[in-house]
């Protein structure tokens, strides 16, 4: 099981781009990188998943370098409503569950 390491917390002003980096040095060949977002008093919500290079959806972008030992979640022009905990997960093919780490608590400041 690949361990993930991400900053415990980050602050950002409204309107800025936020990049949250996650390290996963022992990621395996068949592992995918997945990010979840959790608002206070709610369950986690899937944001994005990728294997390599770049993935973009309506919410975020995910950048994965060639060695796949890290990944960066990019949130464009954050707003106050983006204040949440963001979890980076490395998910193995055929895995039966998700292992959540400590996550990164993002606080968006007016």
């Amino acid at each position, binding site marked *: 099981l690949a361990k993930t390491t991400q900053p415990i917390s980050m602050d950002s002003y409204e309107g800025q781009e936020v990049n949250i980096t996650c390290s996963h040095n022992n990621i395996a060949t068949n592992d995918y990188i997945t990010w979840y977002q959790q608002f206070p008093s*709610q369950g986690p919500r899937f944001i994005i998943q990728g294997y390599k290079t770049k993935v973009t959806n309506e919410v975020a972008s995910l950048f994965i370098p060639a060695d796949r030992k890290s990944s960066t979640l990019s949130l464009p022009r954050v707003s106050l409503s983006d204040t949440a905990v963001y979890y980076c997960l490395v998910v193995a093919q055929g895995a*039966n569950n998700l292992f959540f780490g400590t996550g990164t608590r993002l606080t968006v400041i007016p």
Partner: protein
Amino acid sequence: DTAVSQTPKYLVTQMGNDKSIKCEQNLGHDTMYWYKQDSKKFLKIMFSYNNKELIINETVPNRFSPKSPDKAHLNLHINSLELGDSAVYFCASSQDAGGRTEAFFGQGTRLTVV
């Protein structure tokens, strides 16, 4: 319509009592899970069921017993509640047992044992 719904949302009970939390998903998913989030916000898997069969049972006291009457439901029964059981419990579901498919979480049940 709520995809994954849990009841109750809040549960306050005394030590030693037995309680249940219900979970239902209307997504047609094959796999359902129970997670526990403690006061330090760590989110840990407790159980995973695929097509009504238990596939993961992490190190959880046997006072916790999941029951899946059908594919759409996974209820959590807790016997002889202890103070340390106080936490938020999340139910989730995904299309299959592979962790690569998106998991949908319920809104959580905040259990407080007094």
